[in-house]
């Protein structure tokens, strides 16, 4: 009896202690009166230390981690308009190979070092020469950069590059303390020195759990950044991110399409953006691996084997729009009159296959990423079988998949490729040098259009992109299905606008709700 009572008493004591503790303050620190804090869930942890060379290599890095710390040379709006930032104005020479930037004279790094033209030059050149990652490749067109005086940077390009200014609004444009990047022995995990609107609040930062940023007291453009504090919480797990958003523990988080309806139902605002096109990429257009793919009628037939509206409704859960082109609707390369080309028409597709001499179909193998492509692959296989193509699927882990694709082992791949800025889209998948032009397909006619798009501006450039768009449709280089929407949930405390190509809003596009 005595023992039984003791146990019960012990349990009661533990419970009471827990309840007493729970009465204590649960928030980390009470916010000061009127202080605005922005708390965001970020789907990946900070993948890099804080030094420049590795920002260049990390393509999956969320911009939320570095944008508070570093000023970019220019800014970009959700309409893809370039705005001044460190550079107050800029101008090209006649053949667009020399870019002259005028730099502010009142910006200092947080350690007091002035941020001048020379600092920007050092950053651009270091970045071009280091890393080797995707963003670093974006700087490859820079032949040289010099600083004739403290407020002028002259960038010479190997050839005209319409992507260089937008890149200067992203990680290529982030300016680091030159002494840090010049020192190869610099501890890559050390606290960064930048000139951005915020500084890392080390005392309240635990890598992997929480990253806190507080205002850079001497920042030159405080008005553009309404929040006094930014808190980033890495949450790789979708369930955790959605729970945190619904529970009001974060103000914003990326939302997968499969959670869209649930999140909307719980009163969270879903902001939509666009980044990619989804569909099939017939990379072996010359028929090296599968001769049939060299026939344009076969490629057109593949275009007609898929019900795009059903894909948007069922696979994208309605979060996306049908698109039969690789350029986004409304962009320079998008052709309005071709909107209905290659409709879902199995009989028509079979007819094309027969005309191409493949009435009995042919065999083909596609690679897939285990986990990521589990839903879509059976659909692709089913639809291709409708027109006689017998598909075999080889599955790979994420890390192996791209090596397999770029080793030219497969004729066709399922892709989600960038589709938001015509020139960058061309550079990434159309031009002969493009990484995603895997088999390096080339045609002098198309080369002419690409060259025209690169070396012109305004109406002339638009005409060139229209030509490219038309060529890609006529020759069925791809079989695009849709432009999936990027979804970003925000609570009632903030509003956010997603820039094209971004899966999360850039920090200057997040504002407190009125």
């Amino acid at each position, binding site marked *: 009896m005595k023992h039984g009572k003791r146990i019960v008493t012990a349990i009661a004591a533990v419970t009471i202690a827990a309840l007493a503790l729970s009465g204590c303050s649960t928030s980390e620190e009470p916010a000061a009166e009127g202080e605005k804090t922005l708390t965001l869930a970020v789907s990946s942890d900070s993948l890099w230390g804080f030094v420049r060379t590795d920002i260049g290599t990390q393509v999956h890095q969320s911009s939320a981690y570095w944008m508070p710390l570093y000023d970019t040379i220019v800014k970009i709006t959700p309409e893809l308009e370039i705005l001044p930032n460190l550079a107050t104005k800029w101008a090209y020479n006649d053949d667009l190979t020399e870019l002259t930037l005028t730099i502010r004279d009142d910006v200092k790094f947080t350690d007091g070092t002035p941020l001048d033209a020379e600092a920007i030059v050092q950053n651009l050149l270091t970045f071009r020469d280091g890393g080797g990652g995707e963003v670093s490749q974006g700087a490859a067109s820079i032949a040289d950069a010099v600083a004739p005086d403290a407020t002028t940077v002259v960038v010479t390009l190997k050839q005209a590059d319409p992507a260089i200014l937008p890149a200067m609004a992203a990680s290529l444009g982030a300016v680091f303390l030159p002494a840090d990047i010049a020192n190869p022995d610099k501890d890559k995990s050390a606290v960064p020195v930048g000139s951005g609107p915020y500084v890392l609040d080390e005392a309240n930062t*635990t890598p992997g759990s929480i990253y806190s940023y507080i205002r850079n007291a001497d920042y030159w453009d405080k008005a553009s950044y309404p929040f006094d504090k930014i808190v980033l919480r890495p949450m790789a797990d979708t369930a955790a991110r959605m729970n945190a958003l619904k529970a009001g523990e974060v103000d914003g988080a990326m939302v997968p399409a499969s959670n869209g309806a649930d999140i909307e139902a719980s009163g969270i605002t879903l902001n939509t953006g666009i980044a990619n096109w989804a569909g099939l990429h017939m990379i072996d257009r010359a028929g090296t691996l599968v001769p049939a793919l060299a026939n344009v009628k076969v490629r057109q037939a593949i275009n007609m084997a898929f019900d795009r509206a059903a894909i948007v409704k069922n696979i994208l859960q309605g979060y996306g729009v049908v698109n039969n082109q690789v350029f986004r609707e409304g962009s320079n390369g998008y052709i309005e009159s071709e909107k209905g080309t290659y409709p879902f028409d199995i009989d028509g597709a079979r007819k094309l296959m027969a005309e191409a001499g493949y009435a009995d179909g042919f065999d083909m193998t596609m690679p897939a990423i285990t986990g990521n492509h589990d839903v879509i692959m059976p659909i692709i296989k089913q639809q291709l079988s409708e027109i006689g193509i017998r598909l075999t699927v080889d599955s790979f882990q994420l890390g192996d998949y791209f090596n397999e694709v770029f080793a030219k082992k497969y004729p066709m791949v399922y892709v989600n490729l960038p589709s938001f800025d015509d020139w960058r889209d061309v550079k990434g998948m159309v031009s002969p040098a493009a990484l995603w032009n895997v088999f390096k397909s080339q045609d002098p006619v198309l080369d002419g259009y690409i060259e025209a798009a690169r070396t012109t501006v305004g109406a002339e450039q638009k005409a060139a992109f229209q030509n490219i768009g038309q060529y890609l449709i006529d020759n069925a280089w791809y079989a695009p299905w849709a432009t999936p929407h990027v979804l970003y949930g925000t609570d009632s405390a903030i509003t956010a606008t997603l820039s094209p190509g971004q899966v999360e809003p850039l920090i200057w596009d997040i504002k407190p709700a009125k």
Partner: protein
Amino acid sequence: MLVFLARRVVAGVVLIIAVSAVTFTLIYSDGERIARLILGPDADQAAVVQRAQELGLNEPLVVQFFVWFGKVLNGDLGRSLSDHRPVLETLTSRVPVTLALVGLTLLVTLIFAVVIGLYSAYKGGWVDSGLRTFGVFGFATPHFLIAIGLVVLFALNLKLLPATGYIPPTKSLGGWTLSLVLPVTALAVGTIASASQQVRGAVLDVMKQDYIRTLRSRGIPLRAVYLRHALKNASAPGLTTLGMQFVGLLGGAVVIEQVFALPGIGSLVIASALKSDIPVIMGTVLFLVVVVVVVNIVVDLAIAWANPRSRN
């Protein structure tokens, strides 16, 4: 006893080396794959090859393993390939979170399993059946389902407890406790269910022994027999179970830490596996193997101390 201890330690060291070597072989197999994960899918192939070389990933596997192992013996676990922090530093900040989660779960399990197990054995009848049915459900339901159910109820609807996050006890003891209530509960349901069955079974076994009958015949009350004699003698299998539970909980923590966004070892190992941050994976695996070996030795020692027969 010393010979016994020495044997266990040697076996433990062999296990640590073997597991490290196997893990190393499994994840270090393709240097370019790792380099591409660091540089991103769109990186230039030449840059990928160069990066693999810079990281020493092109060396023969055996060489790489011994280089790594040599450094480990000097207390150097290397640096993360992604955030460049020393692995030891990362582990030092992550381990307490997982230990708190697993330790509290074990404590809660111990208390509830003994109470439920004893009560079940003592009462019998429908109480026993009811508790055993609960046990089957608790044991069969995956951790993450329990976790999601708890979050929906206590965090999203009742708004009593946080849905995600971890607050270090140094910041706020109350916050720390609150942030662990749901994760610990989610983990503990399964272990309580199975451990209480163990306690119940062991106690019932002991109760059939002759000396219990003797005790009863001397007029000692049934409750006292249960608490003073049966429970004590049933504790040896309980200890073994507890040791196994601990190892199992480390596995369960991987999922629970993800769902509650707790910055422990589990979420670390998943994040680093996804980006092939091999020094971190190796460091974590090494830590986990060492913990498992140490826990097993401690449990073996405790049992050997309690029961000399088991020393052979």
